[in-house]
């Protein structure tokens, strides 16, 4: 496999992500504009606070008059999943402090899903920046076009979270398939056990609290299934 940097290959790789995320960025722009945010404010939030779900939750909490400190706690809780992701994705990205800082800030669920151990540093950085750029451009387009979109249509656009969720589920399935190729029998058992454990934790602890216990349980079960296998 060729590990040299190629913008064309990176664009091809992130195209499905761009197609499913840019409309959500657009929707976020509409939401921000409907909350009387300026173009600069919404764009800066997408660049400096690049967080996808966290950005939507921020407005939802403001609608419910939740205070800033509690909002911070809730959004932090939702984004705790990034901690193990960042640790796992950071080692291959070497370079200056600024490069590593930028690469770390632009890490998102979807890019994390397509990065492989063999993905080069520049490919990782290019994909992360492309996604962050498209998300921000989507936001800007949403703010600019807000007056052109009727309220009823904007409400229906809220349903476009499905393609992004389906994409993440598919990327997870593809990565799980790779794992079972490496560890055919025990891998499948480990995966099933990990899926069951995480689903149970999701229902018991709820969608905000299940992240760290779910990831820890999955890691443990997958590690056990991969134990002593060459």
């Amino acid at each position, binding site marked *: 496999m060729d590990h040299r940097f190629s913008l064309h290959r990176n664009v091809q790789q992130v195209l*499905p992500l761009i197609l499913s995320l840019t409309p959500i960025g657009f929707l976020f722009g509409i939401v921000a504009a409907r909350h*009387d945010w*300026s173009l*600069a*404010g919404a764009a800066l*939030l997408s660049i*400096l*606070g690049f*967080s996808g779900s*966290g*950005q939507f939750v921020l407005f939802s909490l*403001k609608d419910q008059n939740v205070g*800033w400190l509690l909002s*911070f706690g809730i*959004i*932090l809780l939702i984004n*705790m*999943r*990034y*901690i*193990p*992701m*960042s640790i*796992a994705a950071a*080692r291959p*990205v070497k370079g200056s*402090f600024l490069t*590593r*800082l930028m*690469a*770390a800030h632009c*890490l998102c669920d979807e890019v*994390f899903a397509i990065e492989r*151990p063999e993905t080069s540093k520049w490919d990782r950085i290019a994909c992360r920046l492309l996604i962050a750029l498209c998300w921000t451009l989507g936001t800007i387009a949403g703010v600019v076009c807000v007056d052109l979109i009727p309220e009823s249509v904007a409400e229906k656009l809220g*349903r476009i*979270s*499905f*393609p*992004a969720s*389906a*994409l*993440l*589920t*598919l*990327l*997870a*399935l593809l*990565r*799980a398939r790779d794992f079972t190729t490496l560890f055919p029998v025990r891998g499948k058992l480990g995966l099933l056990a*990990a899926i069951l454990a*995480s*689903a149970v934790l*999701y229902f018991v602890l709820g*969608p905000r609290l*299940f*992240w760290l216990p*779910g990831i820890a349980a*999955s*890691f443990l079960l*997958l590690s056990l299934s991969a134990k002593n296998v060459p």
Partner: protein
Amino acid sequence: MSREEILGIVLLMCVSLIVRIVPALAPLPAFLSKQDKWEKIAPIAVLLNLGIYCTLSEIQSQPLPASIGMAVLAALFLAFRRCSILLTLGLASLAFFATVMLR
């Protein structure tokens, strides 16, 4: 920019700092750096939970359309070893939106 906009931006920047930047820039804890498995298995563990979160939250929000959409996705994934991401995603989304429209 208004005070609310500045506070919102700072809030999300702080979250990014805590959950993405600090873990990426801080040295890897010793107990993890000794495990070769960490880099290989942690991404799968995180993705698995992401997949579960996405599937269950979509189904909880719109039970029938999301169940049908995810079932189409799972069927295509199982039927074709080398499935096109765009095609699979397109067909699953089509099934989802068709169910939303028909209801």
